[in-house]
């Protein structure tokens, strides 16, 4: 022990420490609970639908014929392996969110991945590797994953690194504000304001041209960004409009204003050299769009917060870079 103090029994000091730590932990624990305002689980009353696609949709989904899968192709390797290895998220509400109770991953992206697995293997076996948006290109180039389903916006710059099948979904950025805010009515009113964005989302690059002079602060996850908006760290939250719509349903303190001001075309990220696999995935997209599976998945997931029925699926190859 120290050289400046008198004797001090070890047992007593340990007991004191333990008590103090317990008290401190209890205190921080409470702070954490009150910090997040009533998190809504997917499938809770916060959403209109149940946010889950019915089993019958999987059962009716198409399966590729043996003629579609030549020996030695990527599809053949996936079929032999028995599962599809995808890169995605576990924390994107309505798109790919792991249900903390059942452990399954639910949402539009997750279901599309399961349907592709069903098409190749015959059963919806997917292994999801959670990847950051920073590493998608590197993971695809290294073939660490077969495909990326992660609201992967198709851009010409990215298309020099990876191949995009699709687009399989289009969406757009919209503006969310606090309920009592009447000064912001559209993205034009954001000039000079502090705007919250999701880190590594299209909003980071779209905002400087859509609202010149706005100041950005970026948060890692959607719940954090929502919390920051409600705690007045910024005047508005710019995010994909489906995410904002689900956020507004779960949080009475916020609302979505104006129409989406961009068009984002999301593609399925694939290895750039593997043109055979890209063609195969595009053929599969054509099939599920034609037979109505695509619309059923949309209605089961994103359709639970967006009014009106399923939109027309985007035309394949319609985005610059796909």
């Amino acid at each position, binding site marked *: 022990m*120290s050289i*400046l103090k008198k004797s001090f029994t070890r047992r007593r000091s340990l007991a*004191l420490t333990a008590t103090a730590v317990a008290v*401190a932990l209890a205190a921080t624990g409470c*702070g954490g609970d009150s910090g997040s305002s009533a998190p809504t689980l997917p499938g809770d009353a916060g959403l209109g639908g149940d946010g889950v696609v019915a089993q019958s949709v999987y059962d009716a989904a198409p399966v590729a014929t043996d003629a579609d899968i030549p020996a030695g192709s990527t599809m053949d390797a996936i079929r032999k392996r028995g599962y599809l290895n995808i890169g995605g998220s576990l924390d994107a509400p309505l798109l790919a969110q792991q249900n903390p109770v059942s452990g399954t991953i639910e949402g539009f992206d997750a279901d599309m991945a399961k349907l592709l697995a069903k098409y190749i293997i015959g059963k919806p076996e997917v292994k999801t590797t959670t990847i950051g948006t920073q590493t998608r290109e590197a993971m695809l180039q290294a073939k660490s994953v077969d495909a990326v389903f992660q609201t992967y916006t198709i851009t010409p710059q*990215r298309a020099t690194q990876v191949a995009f099948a699709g687009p399989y979904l289009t969406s757009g950025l919209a503006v969310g504000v606090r309920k009592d805010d009447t000064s912001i009515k559209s993205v034009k009113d954001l000039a000079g304001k502090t705007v919250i964005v999701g880190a590594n989302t*299209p909003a*980071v690059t779209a905002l400087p041209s859509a609202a010149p002079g706005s100041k950005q*602060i970026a948060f890692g996850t959607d719940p954090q960004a929502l919390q920051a908006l409600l705690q007045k760290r910024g005047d508005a939250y710019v995010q994909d409009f489906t995410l904002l719509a689900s956020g507004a349903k779960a949080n009475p303190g916020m609302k979505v204003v104006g129409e989406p001001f961009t068009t984002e075309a999301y593609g399925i990220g694939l290895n750039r050299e593997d043109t055979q696999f890209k063609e195969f995935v595009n053929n599969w997209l054509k099939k599920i769009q034609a037979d109505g599976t695509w619309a059923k998945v949309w209605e089961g997931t994103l359709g639970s917060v967006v009014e009106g029925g399923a939109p027309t699926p985007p035309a394949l190859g319609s985005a610059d870079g796909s």
Partner: protein
Amino acid sequence: MEALTAHLSALGHGLVTTVELTVVATVGAMLLGIIVATLRIAPVPLLRAIGTTYVEVFQNLPLLALLVLFVFALPTIGITFPLFTSAVIVIAVYEGAYLAEAIRAGINTVGVGQAEAARAIGLTFGQSLRHVILPQGLRAVIQPIGNICIALLMNTSLAAAVGVVELTQAANNVNLVEAQPIAVFTGAGLAYMLLALIIGQVTGLLERRLAIVR
């Protein structure tokens, strides 16, 4: 390489923020470290308990959890700090616990005779600490303190998670446009390495100048 050179100003701003975070948080952590190390060797049992509790709490909670709690939980009880200030406070408090332990180790290298001699010539606790114990104790642990400063530098990248645009977040933003993760993050990694090397060199210099050869 183009991915880096086309965005030098964005990356440069990030680098400056990282350096600011590191410098301010290091100063804060040093002050806290000295105070807490002093508490841990104080003759009053209550003060020792406070020092021990501080170290055990902040050494045993992950920095990211502390940052998220500080940024998102405090506003619910009406306390809101700007994001940069929040990051500085949390990193300083967290690294202060590690520095306190390093400084305490340094104090324990000072011979008991030194403290007894200081008391014998009539110095108070504070005086003996200031003039006898700390000057010798700190010189013994310059290297460990330097290592903690490097760890602090690396930990500033976690501030990206709570909205501070430092070097890591700037690299993320550039990568979002360029989709060149290997080039962009290698560049950011080299910048961190350079900063760490500078801290290492300064530490080495201080050690050669100040360490007591025993």
